[in-house]
């Protein structure tokens, strides 16, 4: 009787271990599929903002992971054109039912334009965060800062570790 119980425990432990390990692998794959953006020149920050560079103008937005964790965005407060920003400065906020989350500038520069469509219809951030849901554009003054940002690959790895952290 006791031996049977022991065997049961051993089997359960084995299954648990196996299950856990396969779960972790699955999460990584799921993440890759979910957040893959089909290869791009986007750079990312650790606060889930992305930026694409075109000569000296950077376009900034938030990533898929960010828009998902925000929930439905009800209001977007974007920086006004002409505002001078340093990398890491608070430059606006996205309000969702959950909270008002700060937006940080990935690079230093002067804001040239903000996305009026997103101001009118904040839901664009949820439906098209990489395309129509861009937030603002700025004229970059320090090109070297771009190297401090994560590439698509590095960001995916970062998400993997972030996702496993206890929420």
């Amino acid at each position, binding site marked *: 009787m006791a031996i049977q119980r022991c065997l049961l*425990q051993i089997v359960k432990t084995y299954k*648990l271990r196996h299950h856990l390990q396969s779960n972790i692998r699955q999460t990584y794959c799921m993440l890759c599929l979910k957040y893959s953006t089909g290869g791009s020149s986007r750079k990312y920050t650790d606060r889930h903002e992305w930026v694409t560079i075109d000569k000296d103008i950077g376009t900034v937005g938030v990533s898929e992971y960010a828009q998902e964790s925000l929930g439905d965005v009800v209001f977007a407060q974007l920086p006004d054109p002409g505002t001078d920003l340093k990398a890491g400065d608070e430059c606006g906020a996205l309000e969702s039912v959950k909270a*008002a989350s700060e937006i940080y500038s990935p690079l230093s520069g002067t804001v040239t334009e903000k996305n009026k469509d997103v101001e009118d219809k904040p839901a664009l951030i949820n439906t098209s965060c990489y395309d129509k849901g861009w937030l603002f554009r700025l004229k970059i003054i320090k090109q070297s800062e771009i190297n*401090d940002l994560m590439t698509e690959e590095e960001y995916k790895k970062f998400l993997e570790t972030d996702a496993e952290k206890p929420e």
Partner: protein
Amino acid sequence: MAQAMVKRIVSSSACTFAGLAQKTYIRNVAASSKVAASKKERVLPTEGEITKSVFMSQSTDIYTNLALEDWLYKNMDFTNHHVMMVWRNEPCVVIGRHQNPWLEANVPLLSEKEIALARRNSGGGTVYHDRGNLNITFFAPRERYDRNYNLKLIKRALFRSFGIKSTINERQDLIVRDKYKVSGTAAKLGRLTGYHHCTLLVNANKADLSKALAKREHGIQTKATASTRSEVANLKDLDNRITVENLQTALGYEYLRTPALHLDDGGQSLIAKQRGFQFVNPTDDWFPGLAELKNDLVSWDWCFGRTPMFTVSRSFPVPIGLLAPSKVYSATQELVINMTVEKGLINDVTLSIPPGLIESGFHGEASVITHLKGKRFTSEALNALQDAMLTRHHVSDVKELDDKEQFVAKCFDQVVNTM
């Protein structure tokens, strides 16, 4: 003997589990140190390493308290130290970060009754505070932000100390007796820290609350976040013994006796391990930079100027007495005022003056418009308007507005004071 074996196996499986968890944790640390070393990836402590404090603000000024909240959010590191701040204020109305004060509150009434108006940094809707209302702010590192935990903690405290049963609805409001709201919630998330604050109505003046937040005709159209109105109740209505003071204490002890990451009762032994209650005196000496934060919060530019762009459209029927007596008009003669207000300042004004008013002698349109542009959307605009109309009187001894001009002024008054 069999039991001992089972125990050993269970404990070894637990060890495997822990081992796995540790492996993942170590992998996290290792991976994160590889990913951009300049990013300073944080390692969050385990539950047992976190201590808690309850801060009690000694100020009852809304602006000082909001500034203190902001100061803590910006300057304190909550990685190993979670804090719950309790505070209350003299009568005031607090609007959310992206709201429109003219839409949400009766602004002229507030200034008349000397009720302050403040705009907070977190999102959400409008609330009325007075000394019968308790505010609670939960500070934690951004990754450990958990609104549900906080609200459930309040629910437990209410039940443990006063036997009050409450529920949390889908909008994350605390409800008693199935329909009365006793608490509203809002939050702000930043790079490292997040805070969640909520109100608790203990013994607030409900009459003043309704008057301050009354629905009025305002003709405002905007994308600003609107509040969702609910019927409210005071906790004192459910249990006479409850006061803001003893509720504060009850909540504090509940916070301290609950482990940092999951809801459980750690009892007196856990309370003994925490940092306890601390009175906080929000002055610039203790919190350098606080005065500057407070000044920003008090400024008109923040409270009103921060309002998202909106348009106002109101129409006023012209009293028959002002129309040309000999004419008969087919349609109701209405004065229509349209305004765009940006950053709290009047930007664009269009006035539709009905033919009846023009024919009876009102010619002030152009000057009205130019004098209003750039003025604050308050009685300041109204005064500018009246001055403009007066100066138009080329005959210098006419120091009063004629009845048509008075009518137009009165209409404008209604528009800017949302009456």
